[in-house]
């Protein structure tokens, strides 16, 4: 396959140029706030904005709540279906893929209509209720990734033997899940968690339409009103996404090293 070496380099070169230019452009633009010289003024302006701290803090808390809720929902379900109802697995897989089929904007439109103040479950009536609804929405969006991560983790361990061993030692279901299953799929859960974090932190549509003070709508607002700050925010967001992916790599690497050699 000597022939395609030139084409291979060409494909890589095109890719590198396409992906590097916007990143370089953004970094360069974010440094241009002070006339005539490069400075970190845009970053300083962003970091000094109290709304940045409020919205970012709000989104971080939402992300953590979503991860905890997602783990509590997905791990027991995936475990239970694998152990007791394997025939339901294709159905579960189909349901967890649905958030990729139904656009998020449609899902949140459904929420607004189903949980409005005149409905049986008026979640949008109070701030706390709306926060809860937003968290459920985020959990729905991250479901495809969380379920796949956990399912891959469960596939690598012998669920049945572990369960029977724990049961023969007298453990109940809660204990089995918390002390046996969860530690064994922790690496998989963590990669699902970081991906969820990356998704929730910059999410726009759900937060904007449910009218919550999250980071995504704040980004949009700054973008509509400022010149240089958006570029600085884009660099910060990219760094956060990169950190999340880096952490996924790190925990996966870590798990490879901790496996006992046979």
């Amino acid at each position, binding site marked *: 396959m000597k022939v395609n070496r030139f084409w291979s380099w060409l*494909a890589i070169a095109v890719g590198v140029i396409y992906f590097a230019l916007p990143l370089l452009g*953004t970094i360069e633009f974010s440094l241009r706030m002070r006339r005539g010289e490069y400075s970190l003024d845009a970053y300083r302006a962003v970091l000094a904005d109290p709304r940045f701290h409020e919205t970012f803090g709000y989104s971080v808390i939402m992300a953590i709540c979503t991860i905890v809720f997602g783990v509590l929902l997905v791990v027991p379900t995936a475990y239970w279906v694998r152990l007791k109802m394997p025939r339901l697995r294709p159905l579960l897989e189909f349901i967890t893929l649905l958030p990729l089929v*139904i656009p998020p904007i449609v899902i949140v439109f459904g929420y607004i209509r189903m949980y409005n103040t005149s409905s049986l479950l008026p979640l949008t009536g109070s701030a706390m209720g709306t926060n809860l609804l937003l968290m459920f929405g985020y959990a729905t969006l991250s479901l495809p990734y969380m379920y796949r991560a956990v399912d891959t983790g469960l596939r690598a361990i012998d669920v049945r033997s572990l369960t029977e061993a724990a049961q023969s030692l007298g453990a109940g279901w809660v204990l089995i899940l918390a002390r046996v299953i969860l530690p064994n799929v922790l690496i998989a859960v963590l990669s699902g968690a970081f991906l969820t974090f990356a998704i929730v932190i910059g999410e726009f549509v759900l937060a904007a339409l449910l009218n919550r003070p999250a980071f995504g709508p704040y980004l*949009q607002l700054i973008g509509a009103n400022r010149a240089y700050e958006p570029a600085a925010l884009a660099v910060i967001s990219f760094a956060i996404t990169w950190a999340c992916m880096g952490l996924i790599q790190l925990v996966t690497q870590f798990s490879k090293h901790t496996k006992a050699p046979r």
Partner: protein
Amino acid sequence: MAANGPATPRTPLPLHWLGIVPFALFALLFLIGPALYIVTGAFRTPDGGFTLANIRGLFTPSILASYWISIRISVASALLGCVIGFSIAAAVTLGNLPKGLRGPLMTFSGVASNFAGVPLAFAFLATLGRLGLVTVTLKSWFGINIYAMGFNLLSFSGLTLVYLFFQIPLMVLIITPALDGLKKEWKEAATILGASGFQYWRMVAFPILFPAILGTFALLFANAFGAVATAYALTGSSLSIVPIVLFAQIRGDVLQDPHLGYALAFGMIVVTGIANGLYVWLRARSERWTR
């Protein structure tokens, strides 16, 4: 929960299904329920009767035009994403390049495929906007004014270019395992039978990969079709693609009739549903070969 003592013989109580109740409840309340609510709402009058008027309301020139431009942008960005992503994945897996390239490429693809939404719009505005790095550099160094030449980030071609930033990496992530599944023996067998490199690709490798490629195309299409944040941050409401029109409807900017909103959303489910149905079907077909 496990209240039966060790002495009692375990009778298989049909209570297994209790374990999936929380998940089923969640899926019904926050995924399937809302979607069904929208779908049924598309066929209802405000007083609850059945009607096709909402669906008929979609067939106005302006709404059809927004579906049309949405579909065009999604097709173009999915198609280019497939071609470029495939080239990059093929270069790394089969192109005889340094091995160290692959890891960073996969990591970067993971990052870039998740770098969508509002910040992506900012990045492209800073690069190809009127004062962006590339725009200014081209103008001052080469005398090329891309805006005078008709380029506009807030347009069909501009938005397609932006969407490629997450489409290409997604293609790389999905198609690399499929390319790894191409067995060396197939290549060797083809060579022994006298096939050229091009013939091998045209008659062996491509037919095997085709369902996977077409399937990924469907996924990329749905991915672009449902995207709101990037376009909204980039264009405001000036480019009326379907998700933006629906966003404006829900926000109440152009509130005429919520049931038209249901119909718009229903149309989106139909389009992405068709694309993803195709994906699932083709995926199943392609896995028969690469196993």
